[in-house]
């Protein structure tokens, strides 16, 4: 049971970091974010699509990302998300935390993160 809880926490935390990281370079829409997480993690983090939008909204509510409707001629309007300045700071500190976490794991269990 405990492992499931940890797993959930890990996933939840990692999903947020992943989203922030994906938006670091450019703005993206929801489907793209979901697909990229899938793709980049080689399916290792199977991210349930159902939790994608709640996560996005949560991040938006926290002011870490900002969603905007974009209309381009000849295309359906799409909602794009981009990283805010606050999001950028959080991403940096989160990266730091994750690094420390993996380093600790590595010391304890000799687990290496790629």
């Amino acid at each position, binding site marked *: 049971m405990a492992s499931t809880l940890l797993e959930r926490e890990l996933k939840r935390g990692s999903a947020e970091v992943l989203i922030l990281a994906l938006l670091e370079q450019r703005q993206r829409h929801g489907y793209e974010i979901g697909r990229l997480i899938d793709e980049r993690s080689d399916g290792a983090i199977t991210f349930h699509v159902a939790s994608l939008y709640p996560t996005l909204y949560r991040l938006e509510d926290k002011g870490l990302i900002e969603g905007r409707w974009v*209309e381009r001629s000849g295309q359906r309007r799409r909602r794009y998300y981009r990283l805010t300045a606050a999001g950028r700071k959080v991403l940096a500190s989160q990266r730091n935390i994750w690094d420390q976490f993996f380093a600790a794991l590595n010391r304890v269990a000799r687990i290496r993160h790629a």
Partner: protein
Amino acid sequence: MPEWRARVAAAFARRSLVPDADVVDELAQHAAAAFEAARAEGATDRDATDRVERLIATWCGDPAVALKRPRRRPAVTPPSDAGSAWSGLGQDVVYGLRLLRRQPGFAAVAVLTMALGIGATTTLFSVAYGVLMKPLPWPDADRLVRITETRQGKDPRVRGTMSNGPFHTWTAEHSTIEAIAGWISQPPVMLSAGSGEPTQVQILGVTPSLFTVLRARPLVGRLFVDDDADKSGATTPGGVVILSYGLWQEQFGGQPEAVGRVVQLNGKPFTVVGVMPKAFVFPDRDTRAWRAWVPPPVNLPNGAMAMTIFSAMARLRDGSTPEQATAEGTSRARSAPDPGMTAVALFGGNGPAEIRAVPAVIQMTADVRPALLILLAAVALLLVTATANVASLQLARAAARRREIAIRAAIGAGTGRLTRQLVIENALFGLAGGAAGVALAVALHRALPALLPADFPRVDAIGIDWRVLSFAAATALGASVVCGLAPAWQARRVDLVEALSEDGSAPVGHGVRVRTARARALIMAGQMAVSCVLLVGAALLVRSFVALVRADRGYDPANLLTARVALPQDYSIERRVAFLAGVADRLRALPGVREAAYGNALPLLTSGGFRGFKMRSPADPSNEIEVNTIQRAVGPEYFRALGLKLEAGRAFTPQDTMTAPNVVIVNRSFASKYLGARPLGVSIPNMGMCRGDRDGWEVVGIVADMRQGSVSDPPQPELFLPAPQVGCANAISQAVFVVRTAGEPLPLAAELRTLVRSQEPLLAVDSILTMEERVMKTLAKPRLYAVILAGFALFAVAIAGVGLFGVLSYSVAQRSREIGVRTALGARPSDIVQLVVRQVAIVAGGGIAVGMAIAFAASKSLTTVLYGVAPQDPISFVAVAALLLVVSAVAAIVPARRAARVDPWQVLR
């Protein structure tokens, strides 16, 4: 596609949830994308719909999704990556580089192909530009015209020259030109300055007006003035000389005091009056000094008539055209004194003179222009082939990258962006290929002076300058755009669903793979056609070159050493003959020498003299005929040494001396043109040789015709006199030795030199070459053209062969499932091989057929550069077709085997 917004809203409504309209919109957007992706993965419409419905159900299960959201303001600004046409360019470049790094083999082949194509094209362009188009290195060079003379449409004995009569009348009065100048080449002379060792230098006799016409200025000292010229018209030096920069440095260490000093040319004193700048080259780099010369007047003070032919050039007056100069020159020439029979001898006719003024650069390059243009066309074809090859590779690659391209399109890359990406990838090839091509061109330029024949005009003008570099850049850019557009055009038609859903190993009966295969097959056939055209051209040039080498020249050039000696003017004829006969006798005594002889003429070196006279026709004594012939004085063994066939009568013997009866030997052309049915025994009247009134020279022998210059020139009437009988010194002003040897003749060169020096220490032997070397020198251009075109053709064939292999392998791979089905249904390996063979037959056969048709039409343009082979030579065409079929068959072997070995269990699972 289902209306997802309504479905999402309905799903939430069923759970009594009312999400924000924005949320519904966003989820509907996601649902639509998921549906497309599901379809792309191969799901049916229905399966995909089901999958998305399940997704919508999971959303409804999480109330967090449905939380009321504050209304968000709509943005009207598009995402930054679509902001400007230039944004993301860096990304594209980085991406392209990464792709190249990932496929080094492909990149290497593409860059190498481009480099060879661009390098060859750039080099040929620079040669064609430098030689044919670049202005001559003189001020207002476009106003320089070369002046030539013909009579009754007949060229003078030395093509591209004019005679003294028209030159003098035009010099005296002119309106369309500013000035006219002449120059005459002469054998090299021995130059000694002070205490230095005598060296042999090439010197040119020029009229003082030459420097005016060229608008050249001296570096030190002065140019010639009219009084400098030796008015006697003698071609042997006397008076003043101007040195080239190089000779000045060598002989005088670049000291200005050289001006005023006296140098000895063949033992005669000449005063140095000036030095030309380093850049001054006229007419070629071999010429190291210029002496003042002026053509003799037609009517000499002693009552004799003189006619000289020499090269001439004029400067047009501003506003005059070459046509106007032609008209003026012709009318002035008509008022020149009539040179009488000499004109017949020098022009083969004594009609009114026609003067032609042709822009100097055109006249200089006339004989290389057709070949250069042909090679330029050939290299353009080569570039097209190379570009098509890269385009074909790109098409194959684009087909393999369809998923990637489709995904890029699916996540928002527009056609423009995709096209740009592909063009940028190719621009990288173009850039790398262009850079490597320019490097290749630079390397080739270093080798050009060695590669180009010695008589190739304007080699100095060939160079890599900004024009050539811009040409290379434009070529590289053009080629890369073409290569990039081909796959981009295919990508434009990518159907996302189809591309993403396509099974990589599926049998292909439709879709882009087929379109790609078709485009590649078409390119392939085109490459075959281009190879075919180039190969036919190369085959024709090679066969023509072989025909030139094998042509019957009348003499046997193998194992023959030849050399020239200029004889001092003050030597009597007796002294000359005694010296020449003495050297020949000593040469004959050397081991390994079969025969040795002397004469005053040698094919490809010096033609002897020209002579025109009147005589009664032996066939019809009442009729007086004009004889117009080349006349030579030779030693008795001359014919045997040259291997010239005696067709009738006898050769000269040592008994044909001054005291013996006059005898003459004529060649076949002379006999049949002038002497009628029984030439032997005919008496030819005094031909103006210095034998006083001893009339009558009996024809005692007839020899075969001998080609003097190019084998394509028709043989001329020729007449040989025994050297001991000619009687006057100026009949043998320069002599040649011909030495037939048992083995390799060149080692004898040193002994020949020593022998001459032991007899006459002051005389210099020059132009020691084997006769085969002389022949090959004249064939240097045809050989070069043949080698270049053959190189292009082989390169094109290699590309086509490798390309065909690629297309077939690709096609076999993509049809493996179809082949598996056929095999499973009982097709034998031979049936499967037939599938491949049929494809080869269509692609290669079609290409060859089209190529043959084009080659057949285009080969006519080769007519001017071919010898002894018809432009439609069947052997060349058949050989080319056979070669291409063999290449196609070889390219097909591996793919056909692979097809025959397809295991149905493997591919159908």
